[in-house]
């Protein structure tokens, strides 16, 4: 019976890891539904970007208050999670604070002391975050797309963090042997008086309860990630690695179109030739659903943590248009999740469910409101590119459906006919030189 807690711990831990791994595999599968794209170039620049933007948080601090608070939570969480290693070893082997034996009291005390300070800082930051969302009601947390689940999700994450930090401090405070060392209990020693009236047995019970809830809470949180915008804590790293390296103004030239254009310009090509038997099926231009996007764009969608910096910088959104770059990313992710469920329900293959990203999630009106100004791309702290999705969907609208606004059709007609977006004769292009 003495091994019961160890076995129970091992079962919970393994279950959590297995469940998490399954979701990671699903995530991988879903992202790979996107078209292949070559991002194997410039590895050193990519590593640098990841180090700077994800690890170094350089774009977070563009907004100093949110940026600083975020760094505290981020650093706090990463460092405090070193403690998880000890908890897991203790849990599996039935030891108690194994780190103390390994590292010695002074080093161990220093570490735990640092964790405790960070825990308080994280607690304070998270409370400020909650106030920003729920009391100050910052505009970017209140847009149309931020109702229902996205709103709850944002708060649930904060509650998780508050509870985990409190449990960590209570666990230390209720540990009489740890308090007895009188090292590393910088914060928890102030909680100890709360438990003064307790018997040693009750105190031990509090300590064990906090310990178990803390680790189970962490494991639940780990598995919550897949269902939450909070996935960014993992995906920000690959996402910044695969982020765009060329100038922001450079939009991809479609290879499929280049092939068509080359064929048209080739005097040798026979315009009446029947396609070869083995010719690949004509490629669809642009994107109307998630599978038409690249896997990097789908990774972008899962990485988005709905902070709304893109939307708050968007000129169309600022002037009351429907377009919100954040919604573009959330819609892409939500549709991808829907597709994922269809695949799961049909033994691993996608069956047309009569829906698509364009129209069912993202409207034409949103797409046509974009000025392609790159403010959203610049604003994103984790190198997401909503603009590329908007442009791919415009391509589908124009090249597959001829569904551009009529003004734009006129403009394009002018370019085709006379080489300018306005109906002026190309032969008049130099007239200005003669005008005084």
């Amino acid at each position, binding site marked *: 019976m003495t091994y019961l807690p160890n076995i129970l711990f091992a079962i919970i831990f393994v279950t959590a890891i297995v469940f998490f791994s399954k979701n990671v595999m699903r995530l991988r599968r879903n992202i790979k539904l996107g078209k292949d794209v070559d991002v194997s170039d410039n590895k050193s620049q990519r590593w640098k970007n990841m180090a700077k933007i994800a690890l170094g948080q350089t774009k977070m601090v563009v907004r100093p208050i949110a940026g600083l608070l975020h760094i505290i939570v981020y650093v706090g969480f990463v460092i405090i999670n070193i403690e998880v290693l000890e908890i897991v070893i203790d849990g599996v082997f039935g030891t108690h604070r194994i780190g103390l034996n390994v590292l010695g009291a002074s080093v161990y005390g220093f570490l735990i002391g640092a964790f405790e300070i960070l825990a308080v800082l994280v607690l304070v930051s998270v409370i400020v975050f909650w106030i920003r969302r729920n009391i100050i009601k910052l505009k970017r947390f209140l847009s149309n797309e931020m109702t229902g689940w996205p709103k709850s999700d944002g708060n649930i994450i904060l509650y998780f963090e508050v509870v985990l930090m409190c449990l960590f401090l209570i666990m230390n405070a209720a540990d009489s042997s740890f308090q007895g060392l009188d090292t590393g209990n910088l914060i928890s020693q102030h909680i100890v008086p709360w438990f003064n009236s307790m018997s040693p047995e009750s105190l031990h019970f509090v300590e064990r309860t906090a310990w178990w809830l803390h680790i189970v809470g962490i494991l639940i949180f780990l598995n919550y990630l897949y269902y939450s915008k909070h996935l960014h804590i993992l995906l920000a790293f690959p996402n910044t690695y695969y982020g765009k390296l060329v*100038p*922001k*103004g*450079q*939009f991809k*030239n*479609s290879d499929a*179109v280049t092939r*068509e*254009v080359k064929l*048209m*310009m080739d005097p040798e090509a026979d315009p009446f030739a029947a396609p070869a038997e083995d010719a690949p099926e004509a490629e669809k231009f*642009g994107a109307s659903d998630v599978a038409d996007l690249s896997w990097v764009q789908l990774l972008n969608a899962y990485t988005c943590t709905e902070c709304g910096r893109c939307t708050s*910088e968007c*000129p*169309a959104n*600022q*002037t*009351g*248009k*429907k*377009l919100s770059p954040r919604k573009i990313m959330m819609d892409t992710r939500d549709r991808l999740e829907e597709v994922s469920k269809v695949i799961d329900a049909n033994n691993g293959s996608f069956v047309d469910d009569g829906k698509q990203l364009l129209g069912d999630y993202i409207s034409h009106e949103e797409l*046509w*409101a*974009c*000025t*392609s*100004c*790159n*403010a959203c*791309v*610049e604003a994103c702290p984790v190198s997401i590119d909503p603009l590329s999705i908007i*442009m791919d*969907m*415009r*391509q*589908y*609208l*124009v*090249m597959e459906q001829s569904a*551009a606004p009529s*003004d*734009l059709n*006129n*403009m*394009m007609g002018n*370019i085709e006919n006379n*080489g*300018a*977006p*306005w109906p*002026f004769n*190309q*032969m*008049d*292009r*130099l*007239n200005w*030189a003669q005008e*005084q």
Partner: protein
Amino acid sequence: MSDTLKVPTMAELFAAGQQPEVLFWVGCAGSFDDRAKKITKAFVKILNKANVSFAVLGTEESCTGDPAKRSGNEFLFQMQAVTNIEVMNAYEVKKVVTACPHCFNTLKNEYPGLGGNYEVVHHTQFLKQLLEEGRISMEGGQYKGKRITFHDPCYLGRANNVYEAPRELIKKLDAELVEMKNCKKKGLCCGAGGAQMFKEPENGSKDVNIERTEQALETQPEIIAAGCPFCNTMMTDGVKNKEKESSIAVMDIAELIATAEDL
């Protein structure tokens, strides 16, 4: 206004067996839009004054395809691109300067992949270089102490990270450069990009150019400087909307320099 402009074409120079230092890509707005034509002429005056050996394509120039690409018509864009590239490659063009950030971005970034490799610079970068090489001088007298705010064109700034060239030129005019609350990387669009210039805006609470003009007016400028013919139009409309056209001028950097030099 001074003498007639000297505007050689590539065809003329080619026939004479000459190769200019740089091709001036005028762009559709610069060729046809009445307001933008003034910018084109101001820039040519500076080129003439500095004895820059340049040429234009004239009637052989055609839209770069930028508005087509941003509208989603990749096919039309690439047709325009390969046609223009054929013309430029035939003339063995090495360096291109343009006063339009949209042409600049497309020529610089999107043409190489289709076979058009040129050194492409925006006219503010080119003017800055002329100044540094001592080929033009700037007497700032006329603009001394004037409050000038610079509106960053998206396709020059964020799209290509050119923020300083236009600002350095304004400072060289001895003007007081005042920044809007949203400038450089955070610059707000004028509302014309992404082919919005050619369509009605979607329903909203305000037009983008009005929002941007309000930001510009907050700096209490005497001049709103721009580096893009489309931004120029949008800001001019915004200033008119605010009934400030008698006190605030919207001018291109090239026009500022040309008038400072009294060309």
